[in-house]
Every structure is written in C-alpha cells, then in structure tokens.
C-alpha cells in the first residue's frame, strides 16, 4: 500500500527555477510539459516539442494573446434583454410572466452557447495552454454565473483575464476590481460612504493577493472604505465621488485619502503578494499539496524582479529543473474540463455541438461551466474524485464511442449538429479508423503498449500491460468491438485521470 510519503527528491530551491538542460528535454519530458500546459500529449505535438525544445514550445504557448471570438448569441444580447425588460414594464404584472420566461430562456441559451464555444476554443491545441492559464486565473479572481447572471459580463470578464495573462498582475487586479462581473459578484455596488460592504476587500486580500494572516481586520475595514463609490452604470464600471468615502484611511500601516486604484497599488507593494501568487501557481500546476515554502518564495522573488508579468509564471516554471523532477510528473488529477478536453484531443474529436451532450456531464463530474462552489473557487485535486464524479467520467468516456441516436434529438440539437457538420466540426464519435490507428499494428502485447504509451502519463506496470493485452481480441472477427471496450477502460482507469 502507499508508503508514508518519503521526502520528495527535488532540486534545492536556489537552483530549482534554472532552466532545464536542453539535453535532458527528451520525449518523456516533452509529454510531461504538454500534458501540464495543455490537455494532452498527442504524438505529433510530442515530436514538434522535442524538435523545437522547451524554450521555443513555451514561447509559442504564451507568445501573444489569442482572443476568443465573441459568440454570435452575445452580439446583441444586452440590447435584446433590455428590450424585453422594457416591454415587460409596459405590461400589467399578470402578463409579464411570458416575457420573463423568454428572457430567462434566452439567457440560458446564450450562456450554454458560450460554454460550448469556449470548450471548442480551448480544445484547439494552439489555444490550450493559454486557456488552461486563464482557467487558473478564473480560479483565483473567482466570479460565478449564479450571481453575475449576465453571459455577456461573464464572457467579457474571461476576456479581461485572458488579456491580463499578457500583462502584469497589479493591472489585472485593477481590471478585475473595475469589472461589472466582479462588482456584482462581490457586492462592490452595495458599498457606499458610511455603509461600506467588506466583501470584495476581504477576498481581495485573502484570496486574490496576500493570503490569510498577512493583514488585519482593521485593514479590511479601511480598504472597504477606500472602495466605496464603485458601481455599475449602463452595464459598465462607474465611480461616483458622492458615494465615495474621501476621508483618510490607514491600510497596511500606510495612511492617505486612498481611492480604489490606490488600494491596488498598496496591495501590489505588499511583501506577501509575490509569494502568495507564486504559491498558488505551483499548487495549481506542480504540486497541489504544496512544496516547502522556500520554492514559492524563490519563484515569487524572481517573478517580482520581472515586473509581475503574469505569463512569466508559466514561462519560468514550465522551463525549470523543478518542474521536470521525476517525483512531480504524471500525478496531477485532471479537472473535469481537462479530462474532457484531453479526451477530445487524444481521440481527435470535436467538442460537443449541443449543450445536452456535455454541459450536464461536466456538472455531474463536478465542474459546471463558470459555476464554482463559492468565491474560493474549485478546491481541485482529490476533491474532483468521488464515486459519483468517477461514474460520470466513466460514462463520458463510454459515450464518445457510441454513435448518438439522431432520431432522439430535439429540433434545436439536430440543427446544431447539422451546422457543426457543415462547419467541419462533426467528429463526435470515435471512428473505427481512429480506433485502429490508436491501437497500431502487431500482436496484442504490442497494441497494449501502444495504447498505454499513447494515453497514459507514465510508463505502465508490466501487470497493467499484461491485463490490457489479455482483454484485447485475438480473433479478427470481433476485433473492433473488443478493442473499443479495452480503450474505453484505459480512458476510465486511474492513470488516465492523471496528467
């Protein structure tokens, strides 16, 4: 059974963030890199990474911003909703329900459409590292659809974080503070001089920048005063000096007539910020249970020297000796989004064209799009896994091998499927050809090796390979059917949940 965890063999902190010697960037290292920065390590991508080296691969991954196109449903969404609300006001109360239902239905539809389009966008390998980093940011400066409600605000918030990835962290915090989604999510618009709401101030310190024990309750109270005056006008940030408490505040021992923007400066100059953000990054991508604190301190210091550029964190960490330490490879539990997008990439499938095919499954796996459990975001790691979420993962893997019954689709879903096909995005079931290619040629021992090497994050045990070979068909007759069952089991097995 699991031995008590021996101290991990890691490079010491002072040299941990030196770039890995290019000579040591072999196939296994490339696979590790690709699975961590993106969702899968397909053979072609591994070849390219080995050829280009880690540094070029990372330059390419985080080079320039790749904006996500605005979903068509969102182009006129706000106007349409405003129009519906206007028409509603003109009706007697008893007759408003129909329009209210329509507004809700359209909102749900637009949100679902956005979710599907984001999945499709993130699935494209050239976008994957960026979107995985954006998901990390979304898990720090958290907002949730339940409270924000507006799909346009949510889309725009994500776009703000995407842009923020290519800028510096203090600017990102400032944009977050000024974004209607955050203003609504943490009640900044409920705050005014004389009656400050502390919600945003508290989370700004605790979750977004400094971490517990690095500020006082009094700092929060004073910061909340500095934040008064922020509100939303015409769906955009606005600052109302009349609601702002213009008096002197003392935050972190520094006194002044601080405004909201001043507060971000104070936070950025606080000595805890670099280590806090560096530690969060390392937990997300390297070791969720945390490394000895010296690593985050070291990384934070280096990050600060470079001017807090957000994308420096992945650039430094994913190139580092630390990241390639054998003890840290292949043992990170994939989030449901990562599991799904990894399946799509490994199996060469397009993401689902209809909400019914995937959004409920993501929820059942524990990660409904843009609905984190609370302001702390998803806890992640082992918390992704319980009997229900595992059952949902197993179900998902199985479903990708079963042709959908098109007669059972409703009209909307059928139309969506037809449109996807026309747009060349109709690969939603694993074809026999793909299956055969995954398996490769040779006796079943060779096929077992191909499958394990192609799909699993670490070399399989001989017993595993033997059991897999045993399950593979010998007779030609039922070859594909049996192969399908075996591949499904590999995609469901514990090792495939890791990356």
């Amino acid at each position, binding site marked *: 059974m699991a031995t008590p965890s021996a101290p991990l063999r890691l490079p010491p902190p002072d040299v941990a963030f030196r770039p890995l010697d290019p000579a040591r960037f072999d196939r296994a290292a490339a696979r590790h890199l690709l699975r961590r920065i993106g969702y899968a390590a397909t053979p072609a991508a591994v070849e390219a990474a080995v050829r280009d080296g880690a540094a070029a691969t990372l330059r390419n991954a985080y080079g320039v911003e790749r904006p996500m196109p605005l979903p068509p449903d969102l182009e006129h969404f706000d106007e349409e909703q405003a129009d519906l609300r206007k028409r509603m006001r003109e009706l007697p109360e008893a007759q408003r329900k129909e329009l209210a239902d329509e507004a809700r239905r359209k909102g749900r539809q637009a949100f679902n459409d956005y979710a599907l389009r984001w999945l499709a966008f993130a699935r494209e390998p050239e976008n994957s590292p960026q979107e995985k980093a954006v998901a990390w940011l979304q898990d720090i400066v958290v907002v949730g659809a339940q409270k924000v409600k507006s799909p346009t605000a949510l889309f725009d918030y994500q776009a703000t974080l995407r842009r923020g990835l290519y800028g510096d962290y203090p600017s990102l915090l400032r944009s977050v503070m000024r974004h209607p989604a955050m203003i609504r999510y943490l009640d900044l618009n409920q705050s005014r001089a004389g009656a400050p709401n502390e919600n945003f101030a508290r989370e700004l310190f605790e979750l977004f920048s400094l971490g517990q024990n690095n500020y006082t309750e009094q700092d929060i109270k004073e910061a909340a005063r500095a934040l008064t005056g922020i509100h939303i006008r015409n769906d955009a940030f606005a600052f109302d000096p009349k609601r702002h408490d213009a008096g002197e505040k003392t935050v972190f021992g520094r006194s002044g007539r601080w405004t909201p923007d001043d507060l971000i400066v104070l936070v950025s100059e606080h000595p805890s910020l670099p280590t806090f953000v560096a530690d969060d990054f390392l937990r997300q991508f390297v070791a969720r249970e945390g490394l000895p604190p010296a690593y985050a301190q070291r990384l934070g210091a280096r990050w600060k020297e470079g001017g807090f550029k957000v994308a420096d964190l992945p650039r430094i960490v994913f190139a580092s000796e630390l990241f390639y330490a054998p003890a840290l490879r292949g043992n990170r539990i994939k989030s449901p989004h990562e599991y799904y997008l990894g399946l799509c990439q490994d199996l060469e499938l397009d993401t689902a064209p209809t909400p019914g095919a995937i959004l409920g499954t993501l929820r059942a796996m524990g990660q409904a799009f843009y609905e984190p459990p609370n302001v702390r975001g998803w806890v992640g790691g082992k918390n992704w896994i319980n*009997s229900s979420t595992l059952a949902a993962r197993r179900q998902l893997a199985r479903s990708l091998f079963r042709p959908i019954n098109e007669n059972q689709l409703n009209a909307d879903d059928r139309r969506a499927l037809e449109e996807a096909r026309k747009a060349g995005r109709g690969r939603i079931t694993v074809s026999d050809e793909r299956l055969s290619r995954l398996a490769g040629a040779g006796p079943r021992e060779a096929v077992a090796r191909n499958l394990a090497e192609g799909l699993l994050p*670490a070399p399989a045990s001989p017993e*595993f390979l033997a059991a897999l070979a045993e*399950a593979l068909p010998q007779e030609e007759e039922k070859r594909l059917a049996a192969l399908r069952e*075996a591949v499904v089991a590999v995609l469901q097995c514990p090792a495939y949940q890791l990356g």
Partner: protein
Amino acid sequence: MLTPYTRREFLRTAGKGLGLVAFASVAPRFLTDSVLAGAPAPLKDMPVMVIIQLAGGNDGLNTLIPFEDDNYHRLRPTLGIKQGAPMHRLADNLAFHPGCGKLAELWKNGGLSIIRNVGYPNPNRSHFRSTEIWETATDAHVNGDTGWVGRYFDAACDGQGSDPAGVHTTGILPQSFFSASPHNTFGLTGDAGRGGKRRPGAQRGRLPDSAEILATLNDAPPPPSLAGDDNAEYLRHTLMDALVTESRVQDILSKDKPEAEYPPTALGQSLRRIAALIASNLETRVYFTSHGGFDTHANQLGTHARLLTELSDAMAAFQLDLERRKIAGRVLTMTFSEFGRRPSENGSAGTDHGTAAPLFIMGSGLRNNLVGQAPDLNIEKNKDITFSTDFRQVYATILRKRLGVDPAAILPGRKFGELDFL
C-alpha cells in the same frame, strides 16, 4: 466499524460475480487494513439517517395551513386553502394540506414530528446559496467548504469502511456530504435495481466489457513511477470502492422484495431502494435523496398539491416498509428545503422565494410531534416571516440524540439549543 459479515459478503461476491477483481495490490480497504478496526458495533443498532431534500423552496404555509388565521387569508386571497377544503386538521389553526393525508395519519400515530418555522438569521433568497447554507450549516455570511453530514463522517467514521458512509440518489454528490478527509460515498443512479442487468462473467466465452476490463486494470499495480503516489492511490481506492459497491448494490437491489407498496414516483422508487439498502446491513450511515419542483412561482396550486401528495405517499410507504422489516427503530428521516415561500401570493397565482418553513422528522420513538412556534403572519404585504427555530438546532438534536456525536465538533460557531422531538 467493519464486520465479519461484510467481509464474508464481499468475498462471496468476489468469488462469484466480481471474479475479475483479484487482490493483488489494491484490495478494498477493509481487507488491507483488516482487523485493525477492532470489535465492530452491532449493525442492528447502528442508527441511519435519511434526508429528503424538497428542492426549489417548499411553500410551508400551504403545507401546514393556519386555516383559522385571517392574516393567512389576507395574504393568500386566491392561493389560500379555504376552510372547508378537505385538509387534514391536526390542531386548532393547523391542518395538513389535502394531499398530505398519509403524513397526517403518521403524525397522529406518533410517527411524525413537525418542527415549525425553521430558518436562519439573515436569510438568503438565492436557491443556490440558501441550499449551500443548509448543507454546509454555516452562518449566512460564511462560505463553508464541507457539509454537515461530511463533518459527521469526519467525526464518526474512520474512512476505512468498505461500504459507503453516505449514499445519495442525486446525480451529483450533495454538498452535505463534502468532508475534510475522504470517505467512501456512493451515487445510486436511476436505473440501479430495475433488474435484468447482467453481471460480469455471467456468460462464458463472451467478450469482457469495459467495466470488467477496468476492474482488472485497476487491480494491476500503477505505473512504477507513481508507486505510492498519494493521488494515484486515492484514485485506485475510490474506483475500487465504487466498483465493489456498484456490484453489491446491484446484487442487493435485484434480490430485494419490499414489504410495502411504493408509489411509482421517482421519490417513491428512490425510497424503495434506500429501504432495501438499509435492510441489507450496508454500513451506510446517511442516505440523501431529493424531491424537486417546489419553485412554484406561477400557477402553484396544482403543482404543489401533486408534489405534496407524492411526498406524503412515498414517505408513508417507506416508513411502513421499514416497520414491517423491523428496522424502523434505527432509521430517522428528515426533510428540508432551502427556504419557504413569501406569505403574500404574487400576481401569477404563485409565490416567490421566502424564508422559514416547517420541516418533518419521521421515525419511531419520537417524543413530541409539534415543536417550535408557528410563524407570525401579522406582517405587511410582501414581507417575510421571521424564523423561530434555527435549522442547526434540528441538526444538533439529531447528531447528539440519535447519531451519538457531539454537535460542537460538527456545527461551528456556537452552541445550538437542542429540541425535544427526540
């Protein structure tokens, strides 16, 4: 906590049905940790709790009707259940909704306790958030990561049992079950136990399906580079537990014969399966099921009547089944809903989100069948009632008096006065 019976049961299952699950390196925890657990508590005495969620916000005022209160009829001119309707009178100014005949009968026979006007301070009117508050049992301004049942698991179970500590019939793990340390939980899906499902190895010469292959793959040691890795081991154990439980549950449900007739509703069938699992001596402590559709913003009367009838009929069948199986003594059933509804009806013959509402405790040996104060309806139009019993008082009472644990470890913040229904 582990019993020879369970081990035997497992070995028997493993010997026949789940033959593919060999014990090379990742046997279920009870085999690897074997007798360390010491002498088990006799199963027949182990208390079980069943939680029924009324999702959407149940209209408490039309469930337990203050039919003699003029304020009720003032606030509910069209939705109020009128005097003379076939409601079930319990006491002065208190009657069960016409659909709750069977619950009324249970109440009269001492099998049901009504806790009135239950809520919490600073009520939140979002379904999502208020459900979270009930499930995490925190103050309204606190975000909790763990659920109150999960904290009970943390306090009372060592996490080593082969049987799930909690079973739920909801598609996703209820937040109530979220715990600080891992416990085996199991999601009972809609088609479990409907019969007819083949078991692995049933046909000779048949090709193995993915579930069987998965069991053998999971049994093989992990990649050598991940030997002893915490995450890899956790995944293998959780999957192993799930596969074993799946097989056991399938087996139990396919053989079980209920001793009462259940209504053919989703809730009725969920409770039927839960009764079968309790009777089978699974070590499961808490079952969680959900009855949805209570968000009655419009045209409430018909919908609400149907939901309450389904609830009443299913609960009564469940209790009768437990009694006939002679296991009613160790099962306590509780309902909850994220909030009640606004006393004033709205313009669409419905009601909007409100605050406090009654909840039900069903079981044997209840001491008091009417607990707490009735809500005060002397309020203006569109105002909400103020709770008089905190839901955490109900939890604290069950935790100490039925589950035998100290509520202080599970309900943070302060002491919640316990109630006298147990």
